[in-house]
């Protein structure tokens, strides 16, 4: 092994004799560190391999959460999908699975996400647009028709209405003869990021957190294979925040959920193993891979040191990653296939456990069958035609990567401490400071794009006169609303309306008395109460969130 002193001396000479003989450009990290031209063992002289880097599947999990990583199990190819009617979504899920998609990821329309029924006149234009419309259990039954709940896992991008969707999934399982103890998947159920960046929140912060807690508590006993929260950094990043802040906000939210569950008397090791994460994978390849490694290491330390967990399972940051849609451009959209390839590669190199690859027409519409197939194939090509999966954490040990991993961990810790000193993340959301910070960063990023400082190929450099994309785009079918209204009417006529009334009454009582709402919601859902009916009861008890002025 080289003597570090010898390396340092050689580097000094190299800089003098070779590097500084000719001009070269500056480079920096996204948080402003100047980058050296090359990294070497001396850059890692304070890094302790066993303590900080270690081995995959072992604390602090820098190199991955499972010992054999992709050689034990490939990442789940989980393409986010859903649109229109439940029948269309069912067909689309089957299409994806036939072509190699390994897990379902359901996209709901905005009314379903925000607790409105398809027959509410205020939402008629949004029914079935960005995802599938779900009003009652009948819709979920159709979505999963012919899809065995004991053979697949399903991810639900659903937040304030997560309790209702969970209840529906349980009921569908029951009808298939699959017990709730066997069904598995993930509920996004990350309400804090809604206030920060995604905007589907319904109720004020406190009752919303109560619902998150109800799910965590309920699932521990009744739905043990369900990941109860997918704590996100992704959406704040898509809203324009930096890599450092993506991790910062994500971890602070996670800590808030943990404190919530601990306050209910749960033991950290009872629920932490079922917390999962969602972060974006973007174009700055090395910073991104470093980000995931730093986040895993930080999380493991927080769970062990701060929350005193004993189970290694509690310390593992299981990660779903979606390529950043904001990195895709509307100009020359086929370029987005190259971008998707790089970002998906990032997620695989970073050891993510599930990946979503957006389609090249992302800047325009939800994907066509053709464009989503290319996205899926991108994952498959990386998995099977490259050697990325041959070893765990193949980039580990790169002097540059390990240096970046260390730096990101330091910067995130600093930022987390700053926000915690100012009163914590909940306060920061309430007073709007997080939202302002994100908007400021988004503006700064846009300014750099507009000035050309941040290069976007085809957009602000190598720009041609090429006309905008005129290829085929996904067309929402014309009868979505009509179909939903017909079905909803039929369900309302055929159900036992007295039972529904009683179930809603019970929800009202339990919402007010503070006990777990999952039981009453499950009863209501089985009686075919609607999403809107249940949420209206909750709106009545909890009130609605009031956005602060901006």
């Amino acid at each position, binding site marked *: 092994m080289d003597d570090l002193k010898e390396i340092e001396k050689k580097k000094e000479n190299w800089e003098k004799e070779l590097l500084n003989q000719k001009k070269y450009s500056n480079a920096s990290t996204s948080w402003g560190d100047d980058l050296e031209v090359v990294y070497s063992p001396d850059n890692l002289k304070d890094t302790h391999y066993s303590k900080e880097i270690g081995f995959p599947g072992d604390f602090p999990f820098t190199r991955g959460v499972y010992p054999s990583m992709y050689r034990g199990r490939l990442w789940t190819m989980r393409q986010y999908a859903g649109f229109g009617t439940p029948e269309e979504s069912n067909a689309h899920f089957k299409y994806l699975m036939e072509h190699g998609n390994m897990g379902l990821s359901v996209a709901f329309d*905005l*009314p379903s*996400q*925000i607790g*409105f029924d398809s027959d509410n006149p*205020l*939402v008629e*234009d*949004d029914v079935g*647009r*960005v995802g599938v419309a779900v009003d009652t259990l009948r819709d979920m039954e159709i979505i999963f028709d012919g899809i065995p709940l004991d053979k697949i896992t399903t991810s639900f991008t659903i937040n304030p209405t997560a309790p209702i969707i969970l209840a529906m999934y349980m009921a569908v399982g029951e009808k298939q003869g699959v017990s709730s103890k066997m069904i598995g998947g993930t509920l996004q159920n990350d309400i804090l990021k*809604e206030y920060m*960046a*995604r*905007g*589907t929140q319904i109720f004020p912060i406190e009752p919303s957190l109560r619902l998150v807690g109800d799910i965590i508590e309920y699932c521990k006993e009744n739905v043990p294979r369900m990941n109860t929260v997918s704590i996100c950094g992704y959406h704040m990043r*898509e*809203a*324009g925040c930096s890599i450092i802040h993506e991790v910062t906000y994500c971890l602070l939210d996670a800590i808030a959920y943990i404190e919530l569950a601990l306050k209910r008397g749960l033991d950290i090791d009872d629920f932490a193993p079922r917390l999962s994460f969602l972060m974006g994978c973007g174009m700055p390849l090395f910073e991104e891979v470093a980000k995931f490694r730093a986040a895993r290491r930080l999380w493991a330390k927080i769970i062990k040191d701060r929350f005193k967990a004993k189970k290694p399972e509690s310390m593992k940051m299981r990660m779903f990653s979606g390529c950043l849609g904001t990195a895709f*451009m*509307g100009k020359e959209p086929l370029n987005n296939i190259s971008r998707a390839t790089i970002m998906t590669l990032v997620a695989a190199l970073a050891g993510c456990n599930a990946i979503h690859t957006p389609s090249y027409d992302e*800047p*325009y*519409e*939800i994907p066509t069958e053709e464009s989503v197939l290319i996205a899926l194939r991108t994952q498959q090509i990386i998995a099977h035609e490259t050697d990325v999966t041959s070893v765990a954490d193949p980039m580990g040990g790169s002097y540059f990567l390990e240096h970046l991993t260390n730096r990101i961990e330091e910067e995130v810790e600093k930022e987390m401490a700053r926000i915690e000193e100012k009163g914590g993340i909940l306060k920061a959301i309430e007073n709007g400071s997080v939202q302002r910070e994100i*908007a400021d960063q*988004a*503006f700064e990023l*846009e*300014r750099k*794009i*507009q000035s050309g400082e941040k290069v*976007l190929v085809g*957009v602000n450099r190598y720009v041609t006169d090429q*006309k*905008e*994309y*005129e290829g085929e*785009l996904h067309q*929402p079918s014309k009868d979505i609303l009509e179909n939903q209204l017909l079905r909803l009417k039929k369900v309302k006529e055929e159900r036992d309306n007295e039972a529904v009334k009683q179930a809603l009454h019970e929800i009202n009582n339990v919402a007010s008395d503070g006990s777990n709402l999952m039981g009453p919601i499950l009863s209501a859902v089985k009686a075919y109460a609607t999403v809107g009916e249940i949420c209206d009861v909750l709106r009545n008890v909890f009130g609605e969130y009031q*956005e602060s*002025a*901006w």
Partner: protein
Amino acid sequence: MDREKSKIRVLMAKPGLDGHTRGAKVVAMLLRDAGMEVVYTGLRQSIDQIVSTAIQEDVDVIALSILSGVHIPLSRKLMARLKEEGLENLPVIVGGIIPTKDSAELKGIGVAEVFPIHSSFESILGFFNERFKKD
């Protein structure tokens, strides 16, 4: 209270259920930096709410930010409501995720200008300079 008649007032509106605010806020900041007054409506505004706020705030332009694909039906509804209120001369601009082919249709409905994502600051400010140039 007298308001400076020389400042252009813009209503930045989020109609429908779409919860994404990045573009709306970035453009609002751009316009504020350029000396305009921007009133941001917040999320989930109905067309009625947007029109009444526009009247209340005495705005010179209504800017809609839409990323959920519902730009055509919502723009139609807004233009119809404005006509009912005798405000057909109040310019409406639409930004967000707008496929190129829809731009023409939006302008056909009466939308003054369309600004898809990553529209240049120049083109956005250019619209206001053109529209409100002092003679």
